[in-house]
């Protein structure tokens, strides 16, 4: 867990079939209020590559990316 950013919702998106990581984060972000933060955890290279483009497309903000070993955590703030 990150010390400086507190997530309002944590989503485990490891090992999901295509295209569930993006589908689930799209749904998940709508379940928090604007301004709140979702922490998405993934271990799939492709999913990891998808998130920045997804954030750009859907108009949300990736505040921080932590990569440690196989696991990558995205802290995404709902913008709209």
């Amino acid at each position, binding site marked *: 867990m990150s010390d400086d950013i507190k997530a309002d919702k944590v989503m485990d998106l490891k090992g999901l079939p295509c295209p569930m990581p993006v589908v689930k984060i799209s749904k998940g972000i709508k379940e928090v209020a604007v301004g709140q933060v979702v922490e998405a955890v993934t271990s799939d290279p492709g999913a990891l590559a*998808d998130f920045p483009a997804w954030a750009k497309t859907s108009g949300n903000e990736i505040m921080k990316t932590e990569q440690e070993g196989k696991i990558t955590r995205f802290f995404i703030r709902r913008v709209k």
Partner: protein
Amino acid sequence: MDDTTRDELLRLFESKLKRAAKLYLETCSRCGVCVSACHVYASMPQAKYIAAYRAEIVRRIYKRYFTKKGRFWKSLGESKELSELALSELYEAAYSCTGCRRCMVFCPFGIDTQLIMSIAKLLLIGAHAEPEILSLLADTSVAKGESLEIFREGFLESIKTLENEVVERWRVEAGQTPIPVDQKGADLLYVALAGAHSIVPAAVVFNAAKENWTLSFFEAVNFGAFVGDPVKTRQILDRIVNEARRLGVKEVVICECGTAFRVMKSMAKNEPFKVSSITEVHARYIREGRIKLRKNTLEGTVTYHDPCQLARNGGVMDEPRFILRALTDDFAEMSPDPVMNWCCGGGGGLVAMGEDTLDFRMKSASVKADQVKKTGAKILATACENCHTQLSNLNDHYQMGVDVRFLSSMVADALE
């Protein structure tokens, strides 16, 4: 619906009226031979799920606006105004069709219902009434193509973390990269999906076959095709085509994703590289003796589900059977003819729409579940991510008691 919107939608309709579309819209005699073709109708016998009925929803609008007969004598062919109601009918027709084209095999004229449904899908996009998630997925793919730099480093780092897994399963020569990315001079570009499960087993087999390969930055799947947007389909495809050209590869190999394979195979015909599915490549390695497999290590009967876009619409039918015969002596066909195999019920973007379509996907594919159960198989192999997800859902829902497996990972597991 106001006139401006309608005119705009009719312009989109017209843009789809190329030769095949016109032939399909003009020729149907509503003979009803396609009644038994659709898995949705076979599972839920309602007229709206008959292939010709779906097509007629689009055809009625075609008659109304693009034929004199339908303009002047509306009742003759029941031609129909393009209205909000018509849009909701188009939605139901297009998004209950998986685009498997089984009906095209039944039709005495060979009418392609999927192509007619692609008109419906384009109209829905024009009216902003398409499934939002499919457009978002397509836009995400397009955005990835435009800005490789925003994920490049993270992707490469994450690939590095998978290399141990690959090496554990197949030792590589000193100095060799277990998962090469962005490798100029490679013979083969492998295009995977988001999940590590579509990269690791494939890498293991490539290395075992001593292939000079490289992994693509992009995912194979084409969401533009799912949502029926020809412009985005092209943009998403071009990311990979350009990468292949830049690296100068001789062959582009698509992972176990039916749609990706069909789109690439049919749209990249005139490129300087060959397009293959990973299933074809694995069969080739076995045939050429480049990999050896341990036989009969699988427990129980194995059966194989033909992904529609790979088999009927992609021509890969013999190869998976060849691979399975190299893996087991206990193989049972679920359909006497691969061309006639039932769709899993998850195509056309339905699986990508996730839980929203789950109930429909389960109900509309009961024939598939019955077909699998009848084989008595313990292992259900397939070669498409989309089918794999849907079959796994069916397995839970209908308690089929099978182990749903990717063919490529079965090959990787059996390497000698």
